């Protein structure tokens, strides 16, 4: 039993990483109705920027805030420059655009900061949390930040005019335009917010997985899986999905014989698909009703 609780705790700790990433994925999905394959790379690039700022002697929290602002602006710029012209192109062409963006960011980060692994500082320290060997204060802090972020987003989307406008623009663009919402800028704003959230995820994840251009590869896959499991329309679902995926992954690695590190990912994904077969819109997602 102790092994079980320990593994669940460890799962929650890794799950916090996935939850962060999944939250960013869901944010952009809400704003633009696509999954952004370059999301992880954008987060990685933001993290590198914050690292560079710290190398220049700026203290952690100042670098954190500055990176958030820069990421927000960069997200809007990417949307305005690269993806606005593709707004009328077919969906699959947009997906190809995300893959192109992925290649560009990954390769440029490799050229600027090279592929060696870098240490990244944590603001929470890495001592054991409340005497537990499995969760460090950093991981506890990460869970705390994720929950705060979720609450903040909930209030933003439910109780502010601009949050309402963003929701309207994403779900029924035509009607939203009729009531005077600038849907095009709402999309740009969604990109900015998603990039900023991604940068928070990146800065929280970097102390755990270390900083390097390919650090987000695995995390993004789990992040997508978590977002889809929780339901792409629900930020709350994304966070729950993230924790669930973390726990699944750990338990599968411990209890199913013959599952080494290599098979953890396929098994976690297989489990998620079985959940989806039963609940096709994810655990907390809204079922989209189509007009015939």
């Amino acid at each position: 039993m102790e092994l079980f609780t320990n593994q669940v705790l460890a799962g929650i700790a890794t799950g916090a990483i996935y939850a962060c990433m999944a939250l960013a994925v869901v944010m952009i999905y809400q704003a633009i109705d696509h999954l952004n394959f370059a999301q992880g790379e954008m987060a990685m690039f933001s993290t590198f920027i914050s690292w560079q700022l710290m190398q220049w002697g700026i203290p952690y929290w100042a670098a954190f805030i500055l990176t958030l602002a820069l990421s927000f602006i960069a997200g809007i710029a990417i949307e305005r420059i690269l993806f606005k012209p593709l707004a009328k192109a077919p969906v699959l062409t947009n997906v190809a655009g995300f893959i192109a963006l992925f290649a560009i960011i990954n390769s440029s980060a490799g050229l600027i900061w090279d592929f060696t692994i870098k240490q990244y500082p944590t603001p929470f320290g890495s001592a054991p949390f409340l005497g537990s060997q499995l969760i460090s204060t950093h991981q506890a802090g990460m869970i705390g930040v994720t929950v705060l972020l979720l609450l903040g987003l909930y209030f933003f989307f439910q109780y502010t005019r601009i949050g309402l406008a963003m929701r309207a623009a994403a779900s029924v663009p035509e009607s939203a335009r009729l009531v005077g919402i600038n849907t095009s800028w709402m999309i740009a704003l969604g990109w900015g917010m998603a990039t900023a959230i991604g940068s928070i995820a990146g800065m929280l994840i970097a102390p755990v997985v270390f900083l390097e251009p390919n650090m987000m590869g695995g995390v993004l896959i789990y992040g997508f899986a978590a977002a889809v499991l929780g339901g792409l329309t629900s930020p709350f679902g994304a966070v729950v999905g993230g924790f669930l995926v973390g726990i699944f992954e750990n338990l599968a690695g411990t209890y199913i014989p013959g599952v080494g590190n290599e098979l953890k990912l396929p098994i976690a994904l297989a489990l998620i698909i079985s959940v989806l077969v039963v609940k096709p819109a994810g655990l907390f997602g809204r079922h989209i009703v189509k007009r015939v």
Partner: protein
Amino acid sequence: MSAAEEVVAEGHQAVEAVPKRAMTLGTGTSLVVLAALIIMPIFVKNFIIFQMTMLLIYGLAVLALNILTGGSGQFSLGQSAFYAVGAYTTAVLMEHFDVNYALTLPIAGIVCFGFGFLFGQPALRLSGVYLALATFALATAMPQLLKLNFLEHWTGGVQGLVVTKPDAPFGLKMSQDMWLYYFSLVVVIGIYILAVNLLRSRSGRAFMAIRDNEIAASAMGVDVALYKTLAFGVSAAITGIAGSLGAIAVQFVAPDSYTITLAISLFLGMVVGGVGWLPGSIVGAAFIIFVPNIAEGISKGLSGAVFGVLLFAVIYLVPHGARQVAILGQQLAGKLRKN
């Protein structure tokens, strides 16, 4: 969320409705392309012939994805898994059972058809992003499954298997590469003709009806579940045959040659070639084979970025892929004829 808040989405399609006439080339153009493909190897070096063989093979794999996505409107990021199954079927049959290489192709096709058809069953309940994730899971799982210990006797584990390259038969004086090129060409043309006929048949119309409006299709009496899984099966079978040809051409199969990167490349090939336009498959294949090399040539350190920029350039200029170029060409030709 309460039921009252449910969103009613207008029936917008993820995949464009391409009419079936617009899916192929005219007879005249087809013959010109065919002639070029037949004559070309006589004038070039062996390495270029090898590259052209790979072009045909990837073209075939993109074609398979095109039937699935452009034809029946289902999305797949798992094509690399079917490709791997085809490649391994051929490698295992050739190396462990001494089966003739030509015979392994139909066997690989049948094995992959079964695999794709079965995978199509759970995929039935999923669509869009959810289907993408499911197929993506398949693609990430495949290399790991091929590395499993108890399969190692057959698959060679991480090391993979070496495949012997066949000689030209009937005492033909032809290099192995050239023979393999013509062999692949015959297979690819055969499958292309079958694919065109499939899309023009009753089944093809059923695929397109499902792509354009699933509910309307089922109201017309199309067995949606059957045809969706059938599309998966056919696509997997063709991808599997491409995989077997690939194994013979590269002379080597290993789990890490069939990762998600391959599936993403095939997807890019389909987009660049034009979703739902079968001849575009070969254009898309050319893009995914040659453009990374060109990018590497321009800048070693930034090859990924150059590739991304080139890809962006292509999708800006022609968001509908090579199909758009072909349509423009046709319109231009039509105007010239009128004058």
